[in-house]
């Protein structure tokens, strides 16, 4: 397999551009949503697994993870869906779920988990919060020792714009999770 020098140069330049384009576009998209998107507050409960490549993160268990539907048989495990969001008692909940992208700004993507007694249960795609490796277990331990302290609920602040969501922070009362375990 031999290439001419010009083909090699063109190929190499394209490769370098693509290699730089992919991470830069990831940064650009996320920054865009963080600055332009609206902030939503979801109630969560963290647990702590880890990922062999990307290090320690906290998995967020969202409290509001279901929605009533007319017919549960329309929804299958693993299916992609779109949830229209609304504010309820200061927190964000999913008002309705749809198969097609809604013509609104306040929606996000969802993955259907299961259905039960007239409700569809789902997971959010922004359920991983990466932390410094020594801090992720501490965060989980702190959550466990807090027990049923509901006076300061844990909230995931998620910026959303046109369905694209970026998890910005985890807040406990007035402070962030990072500040609390520093």
């Amino acid at each position, binding site marked *: *397999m031999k290439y001419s020098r010009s083909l090699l140069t063109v190929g*190499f330049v394209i*490769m370098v551009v693509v290699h730089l384009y992919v991470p830069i576009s990831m*940064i650009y998209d*996320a920054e865009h949503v963080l600055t332009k998107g609206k902030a939503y507050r979801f109630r969560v409960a963290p647990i702590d697994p880890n*990922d062999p490549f*990307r290090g*320690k993160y906290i998995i967020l268990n969202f409290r509001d993870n279901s929605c009533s539907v007319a017919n549960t048989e329309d929804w299958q495990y693993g299916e992609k869906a779109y949830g229209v969001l609304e504010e309820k008692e200061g927190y964000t909940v999913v008002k309705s779920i749809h198969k097609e992208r809604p013509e609104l700004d306040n929606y996000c993507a969802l993955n259907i988990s299961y259905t039960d007694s007239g409700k569809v249960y789902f997971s959010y795609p922004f359920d*991983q919060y990466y932390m410094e490796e020594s801090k992720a277990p501490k965060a989980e331990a702190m959550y466990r020792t807090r027990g049923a302290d509901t006076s300061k609920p844990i909230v995931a602040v998620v910026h959303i714009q046109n369905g694209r969501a970026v998890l910005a922070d985890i807040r406990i009362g007035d402070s962030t999770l990072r500040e609390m375990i520093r």
Partner: protein
Amino acid sequence: MKIDLKELEDAKIISSDTAYAIREYYRSKSTQSPNRLVIAFSILGAVLVGLGIILIVAHNWDQLSRGVKTTLSFVPLIVGQFAAAYAVFKAKQSIAWSEASGCFLTFALGACIALISQVYHIEGDLSEFLFTWSVLILPIVYLLRSGMVSLIYMVLITYYLVETGYGLSRDAFVYRFWVLWFANVPFLYSLFKEKKHINFIHLHSVILPISLSIGVGSLSGKFTPLSSIAFMSLFGLIYGFGHLYRVSAPNGFSIYGSLATMFLLYWLSFENYWETLDYIDWTRSLFFAQTFYAALFCFLLALGFYVFFFKINGWNFKDYLRPIMTVFVLYSLIFVLGQFMPGMAQGLINLLILGIGIFILKQGASSRHLGMMNYGLALISILVICRFFDTDMSFVWRGLIFIALGFGFFAANYRMIQYRKKT
């Protein structure tokens, strides 16, 4: 073999021109031939540094601001790109440079994407990450002609398939694995054709069969029992490829093909399989099942391969036909029979294993090949041991049979060694 060219030249056995040509040939060969140790250590170094960067990145430095973290994530990537540029445009002959810079760039890319995903908690799971990473490193395989990056690529796409193609998390993107797999075929073709990098060929001959087997496994859906035909045909094909592509006498392909075929045969030799078999409904719905087409495709591919194999070997079955080569055809017939007479099918599978064992044992004994003879003995012994699980034989009998098998091994090996000593 050391030849004194001067002596041959003086004795007028070769001309001075020929002597010159021989000297030049070896001189150019010695400069071209890669120093394997240097290549191995450069790859090892690059892989370790690359993995080290990924681990450091995975620490997820909280003290650093978002801007600093994202900027830092590009540093290894840019260093990798410069190293790759040097390897491609300056150090053209150096395999060590190509391999080391290719490996480093591969890991730097993974680290860069991983760090950005961390910083922004970007949605997407491990499989999406593996997919993006694999797509991005494919050009490195071709531009740097790196055998090591090709290996990493095959491992990554196989890992991607394991994440997406199996169990409950099985998703609609399984086809991506095959697209990525075939995207690497032109490189593999040149690697196997040029036969320059024997070590990489050996490593690929282990990774490729594993990756193909996992790939075929992911194709099974409805009518799961049919996937045994797909697997048997694939193993037969891999075994045959090992005999067609003779880079070394037993190679990864032929060893894997043989062992995998026998393993599957043993599994099928149990009563359990045929008793609990989810019998095929031979109606129209069969023709809508993915497993059916996977089995048909693998079977026809293996059949076509062997037609080609024997055609180029002048239809010389005597010298080229091996028992493992026939298994996928025989098994397919037994499988169909098993739908109606499971007991008979199970019996035939046992006979097939026994036949293969005896054939290999006989072949080993007649060619005085100790390894082959023991392989044949082992095949028969495993069959006997397997049958212990099916029957209600008393422990005394089981014990006696084990002892007899053990003595059989001793006696056969002893006789063979004695015979070798005599001759």
